[in-house]
């Protein structure tokens, strides 16, 4: 797992999983469709990756499908890192 993916995974576990909740969350766990992150909470997750990686993700790209797993979010971040490079 690369650093970027690990940072996002750690953030998701820290912010969206209640302390003591023993549910396993991995890089391919369904976040939105799996009910771990809802569409409102997605805004703070988007804000986190934008701030952390100095990118701006347009609303049209910030869809529930694009945020549905840590791997998908990492892929989105990489795409916009290239745009901003």
């Amino acid at each position, binding site marked *: 797992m690369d650093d970027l993916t690990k940072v996002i995974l750690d953030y998701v576990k820290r912010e969206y999983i209640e*302390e003591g*909740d023993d549910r396993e969350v991995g890089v391919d766990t*369904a976040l939105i*469709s*799996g009910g771990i992150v809802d*569409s409102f*909470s997605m805004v703070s997750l988007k804000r986190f990756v934008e*701030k952390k990686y100095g990118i701006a993700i347009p*609303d049209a790209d910030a869809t529930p499908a694009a945020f549905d797993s840590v791997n998908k979010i990492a892929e989105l971040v990489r795409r916009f890192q290239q745009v901003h490079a």
Partner: protein
Amino acid sequence: MAAPTLAPSSWEDAEHELGYRPGGPINIGWFCSDRLCEAGLAETVALRWENHEGRERTYTYDDLRVATNTFAAWLRSLGLEPGERICLFMDRVPELYLGFLAILKMGGIAQPLFSAFGEESLHTRLENAGTAAIVTQKKHVLKVRKIAATLPALRHVVVVDAPASQLKPGETSLALDDLPPVERFDAYPSTAETPSVLHYTSGTTGQPKGAQHVHYSLISQYLTSRVVLDLRPGDIYWCNADPGWVTGTSYGIIGPWACGVTQVVLDAGFQADRWYAFLQKHRVTVWYSAPTAIRLLMREGTELVRKYDLTSLRHLCSVGEPLNAEAVIWSQQAFGRPFHDTFWQTETGCIVITNLPGMPVRPGSMGKPFPGIEATVLDPRTHQPHDAPGRVGLIALRPGWPSMMRGYWKNPAAYQNKFRNGWYLCGDRASIDPDGYFWFVGRDDDVINTGGHLVGPFEIESALLEHPAVAESAAVAKPDPINMEVVKAFVVLKPGFEAGSDLELEIMNVIRRKLSPLAMPQEIEFIKALPKTRSGKIVRRILRAREFGEPVGDVSTVMEE
């Protein structure tokens, strides 16, 4: 040519159809399970449930009858008494639906709460209601544990998906499938005015209020389900609403099951292709959704819709916030039929202004009052009805329909404040066109309607003030293309704290965890001072008007540094 509008029945006809005799017993739990079995629907599927992992459960009406008997008897065995508040704090799992009817069957007051609520939102509502028991899931009991010790009335914490070995002392495991089925259970002999459901809703001032409903609400919920949602024998019905909110109980449990149709439930987050596949798989005929969901689907385009066979859909309705004209037109293109807007609220218990099946839909309009509901708009100063077409006023209803709330829990003053000159004020503004169609304009207060859910500014501001960096705050609505409105917070920092994106994200997450994702400000603006009256009251309307690009109105009494 449009089909003729169905001739709706009266409340009295609904009583007759349900076999209810005025003055006699009426128990929603019994009417939504046992009665259907007696009517020959015992083997008809009442609920098809599936979750995001693909797990499925199916319950016939007879299964529903026995499971709710068993659940109700078990609750009684805990020593829970009629009239006690029993909270359901769960995702959309079968136990939520069964538990709701079971509580009503044993005479309890069902208090459903949205499972995404944080511990502070949960505490506020359980404390106010004096809740005696909470039924929840393993993943949500963690929030309950943080607050249980400060809730003296809470005697039972019940977890439906964990063995006793995984629970803490004082918690009880309920494995419904492992209990001996209870074939016969004498439903509590509730009558029309016996309390049934307590749903919390937000206002401008103070903490959320519990709108208290009674068993007689069944009459309205049944009739509007049959007439507005057009539910007919054999229908497969999908309501997107969570039973933590009133739509999810009035039209996600009571109405459809009183009508004897098959409900399908998807316990999963939003995903457009998953939703279409679900509609196709279950051959859904009637779909009750919400503008926010429809706008999310619109964003995915009509090409995605074409990949699925959705020809089973016969009737589409929407609720929660005004349905914009674009969404109505898009649904006509995408599904070959328009979504019909329905207007109502927690306090009304049933749809009160609506587009009936067959009625020509005017995209963007709320429709007309449901027959049996007297609705008008009032002059904001005199609170007298005015007939001038197009003139904006306060939406008002003449009290007296069966499902109107009977009060706010332990808050008679707030209840009285909802009435003027014999009219119930909804808290919304609208105009009426020459043909009698209502057109929504906006809220008449500072409540924020986000994704169809009302969020009160007071609760958010109180939580913001608990953050060590926040000196003062104001929460207002900000326009949003998907959710209609989202929460925006204006924050004045204490000396020594520096505004910035790190602090903004930290505060957002604190509010999300304490209250709920809905209440989380999607934007925080750090400012030096808030606009206030000379007496020091924060004037939210100025901040809101700026967000919407509207005139700020009279500011002669406002001080801004």
